[in-house]
């Protein structure tokens, strides 16, 4: 693996290898007091965040540190696109300074692809940590790891992705990865929050959450951004919650083995009832925990995989 830019087109065997590595790492570290492996000693990993996301940045940072990499944070939070030094110049500076891997979060779709193009000659690896409305591949990998853990396999499992699919890079990455790994995906959302051309994706579409629940193995709730609520995408938070929120009542309609996921941060009460978020069906805390192991596995495959395997 040279870069991790998207799950769209990601070889399912490679994805499975990353998930297997994550499992191994999790087992290796389980119960250890000092969670530190020497694997990436002497390697430099830079997190380059043009959008604030403490949870993703910290997860990558811990992943790097647990593998003994030197992790450097470069945050441009607050600085908007198009101001200051160009992304291209920043990229070239980081490569020249010796970064082995750049983990980028950026509000523009395709920014990670552009970065990889500019860094092609330097050999610096690029990880997409979320680009605009495009993809967030490590989130999809950690979701897949969590589902595998709970359900044993993804093959033949039915997963609903519920909410603001239109603006969600998490949804896009999950659609590609879950279907590549053999799961069926149903998108549940109002028509205003579904992308145009959704029929070209390997998914089914529903506007009725209740009609889907009984047949699901997992339900993945998406975040509804506050600015969408007044953007005319749906009439009110209340109506949204009634139609698409995961209430306790709906939880009861799911099969017993079904798993509830949410990429966070959660809007408790609106997207998901508080009791549902904390119920045994919920794997939300495990998602966060698995996030570190999955990101360790990604760094391993990018920076150490070839030599050490």
């Amino acid at each position, binding site marked *: 693996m040279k870069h991790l830019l998207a799950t769209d087109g990601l070889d399912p065997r490679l994805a499975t290898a990353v998930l297997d590595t994550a499992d191994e790492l999790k087992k290796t570290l389980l119960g250890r007091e000092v969670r530190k492996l020497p694997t990436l000693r002497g390697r430099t990993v830079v997190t380059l965040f043009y959008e604030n996301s403490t949870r993703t940045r910290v997860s990558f940072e811990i992943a790097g540190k647990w593998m003994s990499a030197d992790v450097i944070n470069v945050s441009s939070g607050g600085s908007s696109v198009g101001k200051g030094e160009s992304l291209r110049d920043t990229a070239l500076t980081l490569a020249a300074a010796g970064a082995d891997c750049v983990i980028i979060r950026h*509000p523009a*779709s395709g920014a990670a*692809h552009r970065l990889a193009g500019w860094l092609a000659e330097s050999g610096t690896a690029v990880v997409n940590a979320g680009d605009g409305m495009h993809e967030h591949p490590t989130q999809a990998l950690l979701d897949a790891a969590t589902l595998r853990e709970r359900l044993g396999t993804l093959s033949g499992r039915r997963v609903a992705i519920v909410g603001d699919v239109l603006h969600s890079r998490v949804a896009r990455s999950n659609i590609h990865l879950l279907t590549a790994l053999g799961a069926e995906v149903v998108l549940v959302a109002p028509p205003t929050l579904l992308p145009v*051309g959704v029929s070209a994706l390997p998914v089914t579409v529903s506007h009725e959450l209740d009609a889907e629940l009984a047949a699901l193995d997992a339900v993945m709730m998406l975040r509804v951004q506050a600015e969408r609520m007044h953007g005319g995408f749906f009439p009110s938070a209340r109506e949204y919650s009634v139609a698409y929120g995961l209430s306790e009542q709906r939880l009861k309609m799911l099969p017993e083995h079904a798993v509830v996921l949410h990429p966070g941060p959660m809007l408790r009460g609106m997207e998901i009832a508080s009791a549902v978020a904390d119920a045994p069906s919920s794997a939300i805390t495990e998602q966060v925990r698995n996030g570190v192991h999955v990101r360790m596995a990604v760094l391993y495959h990018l920076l150490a995989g070839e030599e050490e395997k």
Partner: protein
Amino acid sequence: MSDQVLIRGARLYGEGDPVDVLVAHGLIAEIGSIEAAEGTEVVEAAGQVLLPGFVDLHTHLREPGREDAETVETGSAAAALGGYTAVFAMANTDPVADNAVVVEHVWRRGREVGLVDVHPVGAVTVGLNGERLAELGTMAKSVAGVRMFSDDGHCVADPLLMRRALEYSTALDVVIAQHAEEPRLTVGAQAHEGEIASRLGYAGWPASAEESIVARDCLLAGHAGARLHVCHVSTAGTAEVLRWAKDRQRAGTISAEVTPHHLLLTDERLASYDPVNKVNPPLRTGGDAARLRAALAEGVIDCVATDHAPHPVQDKDCEWAVAKPGMLGLQTALSVVTETMVRTGLLDWRGVARVMSERPAEIAGLPDQGRPLLAGEPANLVLVDPDAEWTVRGTELASLAANTPYEGMRLPGVVTLTLLRGRITAREGKIG
């Protein structure tokens, strides 16, 4: 250089037997079998096609304000090399061409350079703000003699203001050219709204945002009895609207242009995230491109216009979202038309003359451009080698910028000679 040129053995409009064309004193002096008099410059043109010089209704020359992207001089050179003898320079310069001073400056620079007739387009509204009419009459009556007004880059979205612009224009006998884009439907838009944009995470620019404005404007133009020109038609639906509007055409006159890139390129190019493919309106689907080619062949769309939009490298070698929209077009237009329209059998060379020269000259009201190839007519001419091919290299183009989407592509149809009022402005890929 002699002031007489003999073009020997070209086929006029690619039809009939080869003939000799003698150009003297800025006019076509004689057509037939002609002996070269002493001192006459002879151009051997066997196998080549002679056409009236091309007229581009939609060029961005960037002067004044962005002389690092293009100037009247470099843009004129690109135009001459592309076979053009007249171009219309869009008003979205800095300062905006919304007053007589700016349009006269651009016009005068064009005259000084002398490679192509540069006709400034005046802004419809002050500062392109879409709020208040610019002084259309003053610009029309200035030495620049503005014939076309457009807020291109922006849509005159307010229907009342558009109505007033159209009504007011009728007294000046000028044409209002609209960049059709309903702004409320394209907030944040980055690419054609469809499967590919959805997959890549680009905010969508829906076809209906163009089609709804074109439909509205056609109705308003009819109501006002005005001349409306629709810029860079990009969707199959717009072609349908135009067909309907032209059929029912009441008092108004409706014309439309399509760009070479919308005839050839599609949104499948976007997967690279390379902003060289970013343009406004965006590249549409293969189905749209096919319908646009058919509409151009049928005359539903009147002409080809380049929307030549040079940008310096830093405005393109960046993230898609911050990149400026636009691509170069003047030097590649004929080749793209050859590829999409001639090689496909949709147009013959007489048809090319219609869509690249005659119709645009008529729409803009230019009396000495797009004229028939007859003795006594002004010698604004282009000679084309229809069978030759060339490989596009952005850095080798005459523009200051190099943002061509055709980089590395091999294209047919080469301009070998351009004459402006009998004077050679470009020959074999070189100026003069």
